[in-house]
């Protein structure tokens, strides 16, 4: 019995075995979830990396100079970084106060 062909745009890998991402899963950007944006006061920051280690989304990275950098493409705005910052260097600002749109998706997922 002949079966219909699966059109190219609908095809899925056999057995649903998908590629692993290397450093980020760009199919699932979650920056649009954010209501409050965390802002790091780099002058206050002591580079203790507590915010970095506590981020469930791996959305904080340590750049070459040792500064903490928030990856707004993925940060969901949970605020753990601000809550655990040892020197209170992270503040939370409403996302709507920023004109900059980091992630804009046609569909949530």
């Amino acid at each position, binding site marked *: 019995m002949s079966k219909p062909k699966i059109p190219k745009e609908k095809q899925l890998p056999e057995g649903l075995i998908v590629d692993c991402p290397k450093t980020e899963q760009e199919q699932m950007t979650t*920056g649009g979830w954010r*209501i409050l944006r965390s802002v790091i006061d780099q002058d206050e920051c002591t580079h203790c990396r507590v915010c970095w280690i506590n981020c469930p989304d791996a959305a904080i990275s340590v750049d070459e100079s040792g500064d903490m950098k928030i990856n707004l493409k993925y940060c*969901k705005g949970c605020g753990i970084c601000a809550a655990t910052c040892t020197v209170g260097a992270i503040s939370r600002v409403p996302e*709507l106060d920023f004109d900059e*749109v980091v992630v*804009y998706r046609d*569909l949530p997922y």
Partner: protein
Amino acid sequence: MVETKIKNQVIEVTIWATGVLQDAEGRDTANCIAAAAAQEGKHVQAFDNYVDLPDRVNVPVRKYARISSEEIQEKYLYENDHPNIVVLVEPSLIKGYNILRGMPEGGILILNTDRDPEELLKFVPNKELLRAIATVDAKVDEKIVDDFMDIEGASAKTLGRGIGAVLAGAVAKVSGEYTLESLKKVVQNKEGAQKGYDSVKIKQL
């Protein structure tokens, strides 16, 4: 060729909320809108977007209400493909998502915020679809429904207890799809419904 009526006229309302914090409120808003329209003899539906659930803290979730003067023929669908009215329980979602996706021209966007509608219009790249944008501040002094039992698939324990009534009041004013009186008959928070109706800031486009 036999002439067939091929389109079932349905007004689609899509409510966007954030997961967990507003999941029950978003669902309640859709329920309030549908129940108010039903008071006027309309055919209605209200349901969750299935793939948005299980909801996660801050994840966008969509709830749908559908209103029609005739029987709804395609009842078993997952989504509103062509929302005429979009309500954001959490206004920040306007930045992240194409919330007007599929909207036919002449649509309405209502946001739950104390900001002015003009201020938010800059985040809508496809604003030509809109006939009006409106804001209503429903978040102040209204109790957020915080109960495990308000969960997908379980019965709605209450209707219009919190901010859902306020938002549905605003929808009544901006869209005219049902009257404030009909809404007040079905919601618990009647003052909230009135407040939403009275305080919504509308910018016609």
